[in-house]
């Protein structure tokens, strides 16, 4: 297990901070006076942003991963944290999404200290801790605990308003998530029984996967797919994400589903040599393609904005699963491949655009008292900043240049062309057209002048509009990064089966 030897790197303490800061935030929330609750949460999220930026800077300046041995114990006996390039980038991305969400949510749930604000801020911080651990965890069981933390934080957010529909959506989500967790845990048992270690680096050095590893990764992927709402296990997502309050939907759609996806990504790219992954990764790609087409088609048929945006998440998550066939099928080093960068960009661009979209949907609801798309005429006059936010986010979701969504899809197309895999090209192109269809259903009426002025129920708060707009602008700005594989995303990756 010499390949598994790790040492705490200089500045590795930031990884501990990434876990401990949000947890201390949670404990403080329940101990301070109600008036201080929002400030504690905001401070914890700002500190978390600082920590994430520090991790990213350390990784990019040293061009090496940051590692930390908890308690000084070496894996496989102990637990290690390790942020490689992609983990550092995603940690920074999540931290960046969370701050505007918090600014948007401040004061949105009534008097602090009551049920909804207490639950919302607690769960938001718990999601922060869980995601950080998922991004830099090294031990499969430690990742299980992080997954459960994520689930227990996400489910109460779905039923925050306490209505019958949201309770039912939350329960359905919980059943899917629990089935997913237990399948994941089954895989952990198989892997420990076969190799006596749960450390990802130690496992990556094991050559020649046998039946046990394949069965383990099979059941774990099925479990993680249920948690990520990969078609055909997506049925829980639309009611859950549409039923949650907008600030919660933003986090659930932009970040929470990405947590389980990230672990699946690690399993496939870290533990399976590419030549062993061909059949399975093609299957994942087919499910992803089906999600793109069916999710978009369902989004086209929705009458209400939040449900449309939720179905759009099903479709956009589908793109992520195209990374498996494109990244593992090329035969080239997967982490320098175009597909790897394309997947990371898609994940980030969707996170920013979708968070902005849900927050804008919430503002629309508040401004006109409903979210029926058919009655959006004249919205541009009432809430110009919000409509601008939706427009920018839509550009990225459709994949029009310049935007993060465009870069991601362009790189994905490049990868597909490079491999002569024209069927993925068709899926990506069709998905873009369908996305254009569903976003124009929102934007066209919003920009059409009304026949009679539509009633404004409540003025929108500029601070909240600005928070949503900031996220949409970032989704666009990602499109200005160079259209090539990022070396940053390959830092510290250890290809499975590599000597």
């Amino acid at each position, binding site marked *: 297990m010499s390949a598994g030897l790790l040492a*705490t790197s200089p500045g590795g*303490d930031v990884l*501990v901070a990434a*876990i*401990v800061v949000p*947890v*201390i935030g*949670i*404990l403080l929330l*329940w*101990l301070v006076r109600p008036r201080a609750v929002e400030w504690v949460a905001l401070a914890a999220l700002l500190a978390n942003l600082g920590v994430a930026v520090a991790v990213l800077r350390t990784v990019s300046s040293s061009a090496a991963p940051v590692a*930390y*041995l*908890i*308690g*000084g*114990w070496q894996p*496989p*006996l*102990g*637990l290690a944290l390790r942020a490689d390039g992609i983990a550092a980038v995603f940690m920074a991305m999540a931290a960046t999404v969370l701050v505007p969400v918090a600014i948007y949510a401040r004061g949105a749930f009534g008097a602090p200290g*009551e*049920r*909804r604000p*207490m*639950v919302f801020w*607690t*769960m938001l911080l*718990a999601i922060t*801790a869980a995601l950080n*651990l998922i991004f830099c965890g090294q031990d499969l*069981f*430690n990742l299980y*605990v*992080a997954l*459960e*933390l994520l689930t*227990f*934080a996400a*489910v*109460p957010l779905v*039923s*925050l308003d*306490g209505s019958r529909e949201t*309770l039912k959506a939350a329960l359905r989500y919980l059943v899917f998530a629990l089935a997913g967790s237990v399948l994941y845990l*089954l895989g952990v048992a*198989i892997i*420990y*029984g*076969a*190799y*006596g*270690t749960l450390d990802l680096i130690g496992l990556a050095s094991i050559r020649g996967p046998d*039946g*046990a590893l394949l*069965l383990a990764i099979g*059941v774990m992927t099925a479990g993680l797919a249920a948690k990520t709402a990969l078609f055909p296990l997506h049925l829980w997502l639309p009611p859950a994400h549409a039923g949650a309050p907008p600030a919660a939907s933003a986090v659930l759609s932009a970040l929470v589903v990405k947590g389980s996806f990230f672990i699946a990504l690690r399993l496939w790219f870290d533990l399976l040599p590419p030549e062993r992954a061909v059949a399975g990764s093609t299957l994942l790609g087919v499910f992803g393609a089906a999600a793109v087409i069916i999710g978009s088609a369902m989004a086209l048929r929705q009458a209400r904005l939040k449900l449309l945006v939720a179905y759009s998440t099903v479709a956009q998550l589908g793109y992520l699963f195209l990374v498996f066939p494109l990244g593992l099928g090329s035969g080239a080093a997967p982490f320098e491949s175009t597909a790897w960068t394309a997947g990371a960009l898609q994940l980030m661009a969707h996170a920013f655009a979708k968070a902005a979209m849900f927050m804008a949907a919430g503002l629309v609801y508040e401004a006109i008292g409903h979210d029926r798309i058919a009655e959006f005429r004249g919205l541009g006059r009432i809430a110009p900043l919000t409509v601008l936010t939706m427009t920018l986010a839509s550009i990225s979701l459709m994949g029009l240049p310049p935007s993060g969504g465009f870069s991601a899809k362009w790189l994905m197309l490049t990868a597909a062309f490079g491999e002569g895999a024209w069927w993925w090209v068709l899926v990506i192109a069709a998905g873009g057209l369908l996305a254009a269809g569903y976003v124009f259903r929102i934007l066209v009426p919003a920009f059409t002048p009304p026949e009679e002025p539509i009633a404004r129920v409540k003025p929108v708060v500029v601070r909240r509009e600005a928070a949503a707009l900031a996220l949409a602008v970032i989704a666009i700005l990602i499109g200005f990064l160079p259209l090539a594989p990022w070396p940053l995303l390959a830092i510290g990756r250890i290809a499975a089966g590599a000597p």
Partner: protein
Amino acid sequence: MMGLVLDGGIALLTIGIAAWTIRAGDDFAAVVGFVAYGLVLTLAWTRLGAYDVALTEAAIGGGATGVILMRAGARVKPAPAARASRRARIIVGALSAAVAAGLSAIVLLPPQPAPSLALEVREHLASTGLGNPIGGVLMAYRAADTFLETVVVLLALFGVWSLGRDAHWGGRPGPALRPAEGGALPLFARVLVPAGIVIGIYIVWVGADAPGGKFQGATLLAAMAILAGMAGLVQAPATAGRRLRWLLAAGPIVFVGIGLAGIPLAGAFLAYPPGFEKPLILVIEVALTVSLAAMLALIVAGPTERAP
């Protein structure tokens, strides 16, 4: 040979009870089947030589889970007998059988020698000051798991509370107390609760060197609190209470505090300074036991149902 017959019997019984629970006609019968399943699983754990796990399974897996399932079985209306289509049953049945067959193959063809970390655990156990290897894993090698698990339990409690009504936020969980009926339960509680508290503390105390530990002990303490509540001897605390919140947070705070102190004093988060391992672990265990007992009791008590 006798042992194998016993093991085979336990295994068949467990499978039979599981199948019966899946097939049972009504929900409450299924719940009762599940409680029996927990009991036979406990037997299986002792036969596998895992006494710590057997204690946990009996206390939490069968016991505490059984209590809340019983409550739900009594409260929730039975689901309509919605039978899945024949085709769905065949497909899902085949898939489940395939997974079971794959797992059986792995069980029957184990790697040799069996991989194990027992040697490594033994090698470093002396430096943790503990005699129980599982305590060493939970409090030293994988202390981060245990810390996060405490946070998970706390979050589950907040999740349960989040399902109460707005009007009841900060109030007391459970319905208002009815006057205790008959004399049996209050008498039973008066006698058993002190005994149970002693046994709970004992289980935590011996956990350092023998089977036992904070999770099992805390569950027993939580059970005593619930019993006292059912007997009408004590009232569930208001969830907005300052003291209750400090009680819940104490365990995680002590854990993270000692963990962070390890960075300057012992070179790493959740490392213990040499010579102080056992006392520090004991301090954490005591604080965790108190907090976990409160968390578990309140999780079983459910969301707030009375206005503050």
